[in-house]
């Protein structure tokens, strides 16, 4: 089942308070999204950990009902 981009954004912001989240629906099919997440907490954190934080915020939906979410994460200063 597909997810709404607002729902994805909401979950990420809930899991990572203060995060800036930009979501693009890549194919307009509600199933292939790209997300850019900028959060102060990511500073100095390895990329794998940054992505794991986002996946944790999505509470198991990634790889399940959320089939494809291309992730780009960074801390506010480095881009």
């Amino acid at each position, binding site marked *: 089942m597909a997810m709404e981009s607002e729902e994805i954004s909401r979950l990420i912001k809930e899991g990572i308070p203060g995060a800036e989240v930009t979501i693009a629906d890549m194919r307009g099919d509600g199933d292939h999204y790209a997300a850019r997440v900028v959060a102060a907490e990511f500073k100095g954190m390895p*990329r*794998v950990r940054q*992505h*794991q934080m986002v*996946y944790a915020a999505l509470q*198991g939906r*990634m*790889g*399940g009902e959320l089939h*494809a979410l*291309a*992730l*780009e994460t960074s801390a506010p200063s480095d881009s």
Partner: protein
Amino acid sequence: MSENPAFDRITAEIAETPVVLFMKGTPAFPQCGFSAAVVQGLSQIGVEFKGVDVLSDPSLRQGIKDFSDWPTIPQLYVKGDFVGGADIVREMIESGELVVMFKDKEIGMAQA
């Protein structure tokens, strides 16, 4: 000897081979666009790697996700360390970080 039998196989795979890609399908016949993209990236760099097809074994398909605490496939391991999934590998190829990492870890590449 772990509680999850797939973990033993994963531990053995990443100990035996310096560069291992857990993927859907095989390097010659990837069964998913994300796996295909990583195969293509590694091939362009010219690094030798072993593709492990998670579709051939359902316990491995779930097991690698639990092992890495990572919800998606493909997953790249280098010298026993989890490097990342499709997005991270793509970023690291574009930025040149992956080549630097292979050099640091003394993994041979076909390209200079």
